[in-house]
């Protein structure tokens, strides 16, 4: 690990000042310390933000508000999460391990880095780690990589499970920076790789994620997260889907579908959602929606299987959600 200096801050203002001076926020450390040890990340100054009062989880009407420093385990087990947004709890519990979920924060989870093996190999070409060096995954081992949103410069998936659920639920982020406070959809946090895969998110330098706001409403009740992976737990997704359905009198009034493991960012399936409106919640309709979801998919040499797996995962998840009372 490269040497760095370390400070613990106790107010948001101190945190913002330290970040403006070039400091890097440290929350649970489960992404950052791991990558610093591999010398993939080399911050010169760490700003420990764990003492900031940003760990609260609370309800406002039927909306759920989650502080950026709330731990994955605490959000997953919180009575308001379970009451208002069980989908969020399900997506969190499907990720990482109990130990990691006790340490990892919600803000850090959204900003975790890709799991592409070449990103972590310092002697491999990787545009994300070293812009302009090439992408080893495109002609290499790419079974775990994306089939949507890829570019000739990077094909890595975004690994967060929580982000998929938040994108499906139209959640919003509140962030604070040197220029003040702003809010925007979680979906807009993530960039497509395009020609600049080293730029992953849309936060401005020194901006602090403060809170996640998840609107309530009918789709929150019939909602499921289905994660398919190489082993039953403690593994990243090959394909995952967060779905939510609003069904009344045997007809679908509203639908949300987002997928993980297939896109270079959490992937919202809006055409599939639109195709479900007005339909009866039956397999035929779900299959037609799933077909639209894979339209435009561009598999790589090693991940053709993801196209069919995505279709089937969407159908199964919609069936699971439809069965909820």
């Amino acid at each position, binding site marked *: *690990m490269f040497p*760095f200096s*370390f400070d613990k801050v106790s107010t948001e203002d101190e945190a913002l000042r330290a970040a403006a001076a070039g400091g890097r926020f440290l929350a649970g450390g489960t992404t950052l310390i791991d990558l610093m040890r591999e010398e993939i990340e080399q911050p010169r100054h760490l700003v420990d933000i764990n003492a900031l009062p940003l760990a609260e989880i609370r309800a406002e009407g039927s909306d759920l508000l989650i502080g950026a420093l709330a731990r994955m385990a605490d959000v997953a087990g919180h009575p308001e999460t379970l009451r208002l947004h069980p989908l969020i709890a399900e997506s969190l519990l499907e990720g990482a*391990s*109990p130990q*990691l979920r*006790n340490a990892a924060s919600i803000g850090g989870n959204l900003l975790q880095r890709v799991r592409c093996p070449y990103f972590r190999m310092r002697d491999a070409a990787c545009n994300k780690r070293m812009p302009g060096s090439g992408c080893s995954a495109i002609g290499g081992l790419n079974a775990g990589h994306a089939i949507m949103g890829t570019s000739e410069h990077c094909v890595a998936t975004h690994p967060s499970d929580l982000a998929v659920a938040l994108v499906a639920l139209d959640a919003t982020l509140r962030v604070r920076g040197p220029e003040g406070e702003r809010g925007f959809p979680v979906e807009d946090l993530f960039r497509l790789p395009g020609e600049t895969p080293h730029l992953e998110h849309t936060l401005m330098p020194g901006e602090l994620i403060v809170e996640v706001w998840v609107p309530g409403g009918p789709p929150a009740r019939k909602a499921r997260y289905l994660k398919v992976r190489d082993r039953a737990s403690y593994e990243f997704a090959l394909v995952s889907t967060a779905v939510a359905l609003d069904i009344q009198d045997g007809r679908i009034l509203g639908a949300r579908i987002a997928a993980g493991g297939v896109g270079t960012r959490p992937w919202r399936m809006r055409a599939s959602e639109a195709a479900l409106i007005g339909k009866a919640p039956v397999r035929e309709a779900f299959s037609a929606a799933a077909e639209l979801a894979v339209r435009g998919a561009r598999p790589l040499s090693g991940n053709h299987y993801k196209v069919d797996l995505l279709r089937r995962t969407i159908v199964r998840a919609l069936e699971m959600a439809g069965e909820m009372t």
Partner: protein
Amino acid sequence: MSARGVTITVNGEARSIACDPRTSLLDALREHLHLTGTKKGCNQGACGACTVLVDGRRINACLTLAVMHHGAEVTTIEGLATGDALHPLQAAFIDCDGLQCGFCTPGQIVSGVACINEGHASSAAEIQAWMSGNICRCGAYLGIIAAISQAAGRS
């Protein structure tokens, strides 16, 4: 980088160490305090051999810095027994053959103690899910699950 003073209560005793900010909690325990019960398997958060309790919660000591835990209470495998009396889960691991080579065992036991305290040990399936952060390369899983079930039933 200059060393920083960090005071951590380890197994009930306040311990002060001077360490570089780069020092993980795991290295602070093993190299500075010579508590080598906590193991370093992967050093990447992937195996659970380094599991300790920080303020009662189980975490991976390899993915956290010692300087982040100034003032915290840490419990390691060395802190579970009372004198010569083993913790009930330690005794259950012996009863149930919950180990083979023993390398993963300190992490399994500390994680298992937390799993029981959290209320996540009511069935074999629940124990499996909530112990998934601890890998056993010898595959002693059946004994590990039996030991945790036994200790959970008693407590």
